[in-house]
């Protein structure tokens, strides 16, 4: 299968990758860049475990071909913390007890971060709506929703 050379930014680092035409962004992250934090739950865009931020938007990385990512800017769960400082969403989800098996957590964190980037003070409905594409079988979502609220508050306290 034909290989394509693409250049993209992943978690702030420039990466040069040769990818086959049929390789998804999810597989490229996990297999080529060994960023295994992004999980594969269905390979069909139904569960949200593979969510990453692509050019500012949350996407199911199993539904994006790697070749489409030439020039793109990608953030994965490995890129949420900066200089050892966890993202407020990461901190809040621990405080609220929003993690159980952890398999959906990377996608949940990314969807939450993408939401807070476009809406720093979301209400309950907006949070639920932003997470509707992320399935979680362990937590029942409520702790996660509380965590996103808490993260938003932390950010506004810092900002004020």
């Amino acid at each position, binding site marked *: 299968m034909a290989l394509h050379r693409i250049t993209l930014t992943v978690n702030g680092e420039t990466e040069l990758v040769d990818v086959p035409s049929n390789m998804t962004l999810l597989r490229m992250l996990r297999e080529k860049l060994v960023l*295994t934090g992004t999980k594969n*739950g269905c*390979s069909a865009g139904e569960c949200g475990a593979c969510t990453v931020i692509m050019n500012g938007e949350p996407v199911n990385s199993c539904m994006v071909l790697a070749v489409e990512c030439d020039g793109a800017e990608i953030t994965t769960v490995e890129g949420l913390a900066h200089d050892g400082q966890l993202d407020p969403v990461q901190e809040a989800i621990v405080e609220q*007890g929003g993690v159980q098996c952890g398999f959906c957590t990377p996608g949940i964190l990314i969807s939450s971060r993408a939401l807070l980037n476009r809406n720093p003070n979301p209400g309950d409905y907006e949070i*639920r709506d932003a997470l509707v594409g992320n399935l979680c079988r362990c937590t029942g979502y409520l702790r996660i929703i509380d965590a996103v609220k808490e993260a938003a508050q932390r950010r506004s306290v810092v900002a004020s």
Partner: protein
Amino acid sequence: MKGKWIGQPIKRNEDPRLLTGQALYVDDVDMPGMLHAAFLRSDYAHARIRSIDVSAARARPGVVAVYTAEDMADFWRPGPLIVPPPRNVEGIVFHARTQIPMVKDKARHIGDPIAVVIAESRYIAEDALEDIVVDYEPLEPVVDMERALEPDAPLVHDDLDSNLAAHVVQEKGNYEAARAKADVVIKRRILVDRGAAAALENRGVVAHWEPKSQQLTVWDTTQAPIPIRNGIAAMLGLSEHQVRVIAPFIGGGFGPKIMMSQPEEVLVPWAAMKLNRPIKWIEDRRENFIGTTQERAQIHDVEMALTRDGRVLGVRDVFLHDTGAYDPYGLTVPLNTQSHGLGAYDIPNYYTEFKVVFTNKMIVTPVRGAGRPQGIFVIERMMDLAAKELGMDRAEIRKRNLIPPDAFPYRQEIIDQAFIELVYDSGNYLPVLEKAMAMIGYDRFIEEEQPRLRAEGRHVGLGLVTFVETTGVGPYEGARVSVESSGKVSVVTGVGTQGQGHFTSFAQIVADQLGVDVRDVRVVTGDTAQFHWGTGTFASRGAVVAGNAVKAAAAGVRAKILKLASKVLETPEEELELVDGQVRVADIPERSISLGELAVMANPLRGAVEPGTKPGLEATDYFGPQYGATASGAVAMIVEVDPETMMVEIKRFVIAHDCGTVLNPMIVEGQIHGGVSMGIGNSFYERLVYDDNGQLLNASLMDYLLPRSTDMPRRIEIAHLETPSPLNPIGSKGVGEAGAIPVPSAFAQAVEDALADYGVEILETPLSPNRLFELLSARG
């Protein structure tokens, strides 16, 4: 038993790894030279295999091997009977037919593997599946449980006379005599349909044979690493010490991952040894629907005999239980249904009979709840119908029948899934029910709110149920606790962990025993190289059985610490205390020694030790309960039904529960939240739809609906009541399945109440908007 750490909502030790993408799951294992496996599964639910031609698949570039049953030769054998039937039930019939690694003659469900392709990539392996030509002779499938038992039904297993897998009758008291004295007898047929466990992580296995060290390492998404290790060793003719099974972070278990010696779990290690290359197999989501075990389908014909004043004299329940194509898990699920068929009530007479039926569907093994939700659904629905029949308040009929607090230990006089008499060890049920009623504002809702809302044309209803959960069953678990020379503590135990927070709750138990910070306790679970005695994480038993083993081992270390420190500090043991990682003289805190220094002294490099001295500050211990601890609870919920769309909104959800001593309320509440969300799925969203050919019609997460963030109630209001179990030193009871058990019965009652104008009776779960519409249409 509370302490500085036990009972506190400690943040989880494991979370930092999980939050940053650093936790290892099976699919994250990568090895040089690793091959990939893909399975060909039957196109038909029931078909004889005339021939399999794999030549084209073998010829495809990149394919390393293709195996069928024939290639396995003597290694082909049916899986073990994981749970044998109880021997102490009179007249029991049980036909063991365990799953096969690959089909030899006949496929019995659409998940049955026919061939496995091993290739340089999964992509090539899946392409090669298309090259395999199977000559099927389709047979009439057995899909419907009742049809399966008709004399002319086709046979799932040709060597049996019928599709009857098991028949069990148990009786407490004398139902017929009770019925003769009853004022009212209510009779109904109640249905529960199939659902999936649907863990977010699909199953997976990576196997690596290292010929130089003669070691086989298997990473497996299992809830039971030690039994898997023993099974793999036995099958491959290896010593158990040559096989290391690692269950790393597991992306949710919920039951099916306890199912052992599944075809893929056996074939991948076998092929890895044969080919001398590491092999990875990760289930895809469709396979998870057709190739991973499922649960819940039963048909109950139930009768309840009562006095006019609402006292239940007896229950007679005769039910069919669908076990699918094989029955490797024995009778665990239907026995659980039997043992929950009386719920939290003091009912003196109980006739319970079940027939287990083979069908051409996926194998049935426990899924979170494991037969318990069905038992509770039946008894709670019957309580509601009895209340209506007698014109009684539904709370009142429940109160009149609850087991009183002075009746514990309460004997149910039937054998349960642990093969011993079911005994509820302890509890106090009335305050639990009253708490749930107070929280939901039961009286006010019934007397004021509901009439007001109904007058506005709104369809609001309330559900109120009680439940019990048998938990913490034996046989046993073990643990080893060691203080290292750094002063930090290591804990190893054999159970696997799938998100229950064991890295934290076990650390809390140890931290209290040894006077160390919970963050200085490192817990390892699920690695047979670290600890190789035990069974696994299932039946809500981790915190109870493994937790108490951890406590016993930690107590052993504590005794060693005190003995040694007493010599070093020249002070009697009684005057010493363990605080902040130090042993110190209680009255003279400056006279102290750190645990790290003591650990070094306990493991000297030179010199002599006293005879009988065992090195290190380390102890191993085990715990096995006399019988399981029974937790209890009550759920109250308010729903509103939109008659235009038949969508149901859960306006309030309250659960009061008693799981004995709470180790970590944050973790316990998390378990309840998760169970409740699965219970909501089992009530309104999740139904596996098989057609008449035994094909699963909704084998994707687009078609099989898990509850999403928008389907959950705004809050889950929880109250903890604690009646410590007398059966274990911590006093804990399990909670893993508690949330899932009561929800369908509460939901059905609430919806029925909301639709009271229409006079609809709900005798099935799961519902759906369409199904509600059908039920209402049928009423006209």
